[in-house]
C-alpha cells in the first residue's frame, strides 16, 4: 500500500458531512457483504438494494465534501484515501454482520435514527444537505419499515429466532449511545441551523423503536455502558479489515476509474 493518504483542513461543515458519509459508506459496505449469502433470494436482493441506497447517499455526501474542501480532491479521495483515524463513522455500522438477526437489529437501530435525522435535515439552512436529505428520507423510511418487519418476524417467531434477536439487541444496544453524541465542532453547525442537534433526539428515537420491539416481544437491555470512539476516529478492531477490503484497489492503483 504505497499510496499516501490525503490530508485536508477540517471545518465544522466538512466534519459533519464526512461523518454522515462515513456512516452510510461503511454500513453500505457491510450490507454488501451479504450479497450471495442472505437466507433467501428476496432478502439477498433487498440487502443489496439497501446497500446501494446507502452507497448512493455516501456518494452525494462525499461529492459535497470534495466541493467544500475545494482543493482538487474528488469523492473517491474521501471514500478511499483516508486512514482509519480520519473516518468518523459510529462503531455500530462497522460491527460485523453476525447472523441475519444481528444485521436486522443493527439496521433497525440505525435506520430509526437516520429516519429522524434526514426528516429534520430536509429543513437545513444548507441547501445541498437539505437536497440530499430529501432524497435519503424516503429511502431510509423504507429501510426502517423493511428491517422493522423482519425484526417482528424474528422476535415473535420461533424460540431460536427470538433468542438470536434478543442476543443481538443486548450486544448492539451498547453502540447506540454514540449516535447521540455531539462534539465542539458539531455545535457550530447545529447553532447555524445546518444540522439538527442529535444530542436531544434520543427520546424520539426510542419512541420510534419501542413499538417495533414490543411487537417483536424483545426487551430493551438495561445496560448503562455505552461504547464510544468512532466519532473521534477511534475504531474497533474490525474497522482495519473493512478498510483493507474497501481501499485495496485505490491504494494499489491510485486514481483508477471505471
Amino acid at each position, binding site marked *: 500500500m504505497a499510496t499516501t493518504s490525503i490530508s485536508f483542513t477540517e471545518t465544522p461543515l466538512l466534519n459533519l458531512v464526512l461523518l454522515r458519509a462515513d456512516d452510510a459508506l461503511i454500513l453500505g459496505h457491510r450490507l454488501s457483504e451479504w450479497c450471495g449469502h442472505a437466507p433467501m433470494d*428476496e432478502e439477498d*436482493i*433487498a440487502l443489496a*438494494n*439497501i446497500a*446501494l*441506497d*446507502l*452507497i*448512493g*447517499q455516501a*456518494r*452525494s455526501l462525499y461529492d459535497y465534501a470534495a466541493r467544500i474542501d475545494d482543493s482538487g480532491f474528488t469523492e473517491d479521495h474521501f471514500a478511499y484515501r483516508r486512514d482509519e483515524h480520519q473516518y468518523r463513522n459510529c462503531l455500530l455500522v462497522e460491527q460485523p454482520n453476525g447472523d441475519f438477526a444481528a444485521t436486522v437489529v443493527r439496521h433497525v437501530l440505525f435506520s430509526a435514527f437516520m429516519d429522524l435525522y434526514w426528516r429534520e435535515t430536509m429543513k437545513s439552512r444548507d*441547501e*445541498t444537505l*437539505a*437536497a*440530499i436529505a*430529501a*432524497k*435519503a428520507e*424516503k*429511502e431510509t*423510511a*423504507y429501510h426502517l*419499515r*423493511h428491517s422493522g418487519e423482519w425484526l417482528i418476524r424474528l422476535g415473535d417467531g420461533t424460540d431460536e429466532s427470538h433468542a438470536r434477536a434478543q442476543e443481538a439487541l443486548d450486544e448492539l444496544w451498547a453502540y447506540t449511545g454514540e449516535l447521540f453524541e455531539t462534539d465542539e465542532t458539531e455545535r457550530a453547525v447545529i447553532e447555524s441551523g445546518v444540522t439538527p442537534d442529535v444530542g436531544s433526539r434520543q427520546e424520539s428515537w426510542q419512541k420510534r423503536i419501542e413499538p417495533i420491539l414490543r411487537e417483536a416481544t424483545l426487551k430493551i437491555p438495561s445496560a448503562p455502558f455505552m461504547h464510544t470512539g468512532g466519532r473521534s476516529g477511534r475504531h474497533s478492531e474490525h474497522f482495519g479489515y473493512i478498510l483493507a477490503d474497501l481501499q485495496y484497489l485505490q491504494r494499489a492503483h491510485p486514481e483508477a476509474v*471505471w
Partner: protein
Amino acid sequence: MSTLAELDTEDDLVARARAAIEEVCDPEIPVLTIADLGVLRSVEVTADGEIEVTITPTYSGCPAMDVIGFDIKTALAKTGIDNARVRQVLSPAWTTDWMSEAGKAKLRAYGIAPPAGRASRRALFGEQSIACPHCGSHETEKVSEFGSTACKALWRCKICREPFDYFKCI
C-alpha cells in the same frame, strides 16, 4: 442584448438537442424515455453557447445515471452537438409524480405495474391494491419489498398467477 438571429439559432439548437434526447431510454426500463420517467429536467444553452442537459436520479444510488449521461452525449453527438454537458441535480427530489401518464401506460404494457396514486409517505407505506399489469385483477399480493432495481418491488397476481414488478410510489 441578443439579436433575433442569435435567438433563433439558440432555439433551433435546443429544439435539435431536445429531439435527440427524446430518444434516450432508461437502460433498466428500456420502454421508457428519460422524459417519460421524469429524470430529464431541462435542456438549455449555457452562456458559452453549449448545450447543458440536467438530469436527476430516481434513487440516491441509481446505477443508471452514468449510462444515461453517456447515452445523452452519444445521442447529441449523432446530431452534431459535440460539447454537451450533463449535470446531475438532487433538488427538487424526484418522485413518481414526475412520471408522465404516457410513461405509466407504457410501463403497464411492458408488464410493470405503474406507481399507484400520488407520491407521499402514506402512498409508500399504505397497503394499496395494485392492479396486475397482465390481467388487470386487483387480487394481488406483495412478494418482496425490493425487486429487480431499487425503484421496484416484487408482486404476484393471485388470479393469473404471474409474478410482476411494481414501480414503488415514492
